[in-house]
């Protein structure tokens, strides 16, 4: 459903992403792993329409089977196509309540009943958010904010859910919980592109994986293959 060919990202003279190609099929979890500064966020942000200096081809094929070129379109266009991003660092609106943050995620929709049903669905995925529905986003703990960020990205009812480091700053037990929920979201039929530094957790749930190093893809394979790959073991899994 998403075909990336020769994607390059430039920030002025900095060449952050070199000619990478990836493909994501409907229903998969695909993960992109790599160290700090490898270009993971740049890639995912380019797909979301947030990066001005992105060149190459990013082709989206929606349910209607019509291919669309994404580069050069604004982020709101991607959301309408069915792509949503939970950004790095959560980016919860601190002065809005939990529920208002979720409503914001549903901005492009106007089916009141459907939105309400999806809010309930998010509360079932993350029961802790329900207890805190009227609380200001800024007063949530880091883990709760991460749950809210994932839930908010679900509220547009995306075909492709992109998550940028959902494990960032979470305690190991919470990482387990969030990754279990990601798998569950996927089992319900949503395609997921997962950017992670926590390679072990990501590779375990991913169907397909890409390793990014200083802006270029150096390895790819199934999650299971890369878990066994000696180079990956050494560099990302602590030997």
């Amino acid at each position, binding site marked *: 459903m998403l075909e990336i060919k020769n994607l390059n990202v430039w920030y002025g003279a900095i060449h952050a992403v070199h000619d990478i190609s990836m493909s994501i099929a409907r229903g998969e979890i695909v993960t992109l792993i790599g160290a700090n500064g490898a270009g993971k966020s740049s890639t995912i942000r380019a797909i979301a329409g*947030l990066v001005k200096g992105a060149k190459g081809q990013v082709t989206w094929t929606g349910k209607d089977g019509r291919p669309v070129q994404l580069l050069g379109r*604004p982020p709101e266009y991607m*959301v309408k196509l069915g792509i949503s991003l939970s950004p790095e660092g959560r980016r919860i*609106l601190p002065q809005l309540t939990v529920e208002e943050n979720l409503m*914001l995620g549903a*901005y492009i929709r106007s089916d009141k009943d459907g939105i309400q049903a999806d809010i309930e669905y998010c509360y079932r995925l993350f029961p802790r958010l329900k207890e805190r529905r009227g609380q200001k986003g*800024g007063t949530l703990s*880091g883990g709760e904010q991460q749950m809210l960020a994932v839930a908010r990205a679900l509220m547009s009812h995306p075909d492709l859910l992109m998550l940028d480091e959902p494990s960032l700053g979470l305690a190991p037990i919470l990482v387990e919980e969030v990754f279990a929920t990601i798998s569950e979201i996927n089992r319900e039929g949503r395609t997921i592109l997962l950017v992670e530094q926590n390679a072990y957790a990501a590779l375990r749930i991913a169907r397909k994986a890409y390793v990014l190093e200083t802006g270029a893809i150096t390895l790819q394979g199934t999650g299971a293959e890369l878990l066994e790959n000696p180079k990956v073991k050494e560099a990302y899994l602590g030997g």
Partner: protein
Amino acid sequence: MNFSMFLQHFTNALGLGSMYGLIAIGYTMVYGILRLINFAHGDIFMLGAYFVFFATIQYKIPWALGLVIAVLGATACGLLVDRIAYRPLRDAPRISALISAIGVSFFIENASIVAFTGVPRNVIQPKLLMEPFALGTVRLIPLSLMVPVISFVLAAGLLWVIYRTKQGLAMRSISHDIETTRLMGVSVDKTIALTFAIGSALAAVAGIMWALRYPKVEPLMGMMPGFKAFIAAVFGGVGSVAGAMLGGLSLGFIEIMSVAFFPKLSGYRDAFAFVLLIVILLVKPTGLLGEKLEDKI
């Protein structure tokens, strides 16, 4: 001072203050989102006043229709200012947009002097609004009650939009984090345009009421009320609509009451606002209802 005189001053202060408040809302909303002082805002106020003057007095269009035309006309001008002078500078340093704002303001003022001449023109008030009536021992004209009532109704309506609608949610969200708001599918340009439209429409209403109250229009009539409304916005807490109204009312009361109780100070009337600005910046820079922008990473 007897009680009925006090009530007279009280209604004056309420009227003046609520007009400052209406103008201040436009400053505060635009600043809240773009961190930009829209210097041209006072000129939109002036254009609203001129448009109603031309529509109803020059071209004898009925008042009801003339009001609509004036508000729509000034709103269109406000949108045009954003489109031409601010939108191209969205990614530029803030100082560029500020300079552009000053430029637009001078442009509108001078173009108005050319187009409308600098000579003040008298506004003929509709009789209906001027028939005095007695409220207890006080004699009032309908206009002086209408001004605060209309202002409060509009401000309340705006608060409803901001806190109860999707567009309001987008506005509140944009003022904190533009990028994340875009990721939710919000078109930033459209939301900013909506903000300018609302601010300009309110300024136009204030301009029309001002023209009726001090019955004349002139090209520079927006400058002083504009400055004062800006101070009201800072006083109330930049970014807060309720704060803008509160700031406007405070300023109206300080101005009217200090002159009423100390007539000797009447020459300093315009200075009070600026003294207030200095004091608030020294004592409480976030204003009465302003929130500190705090983010948790």
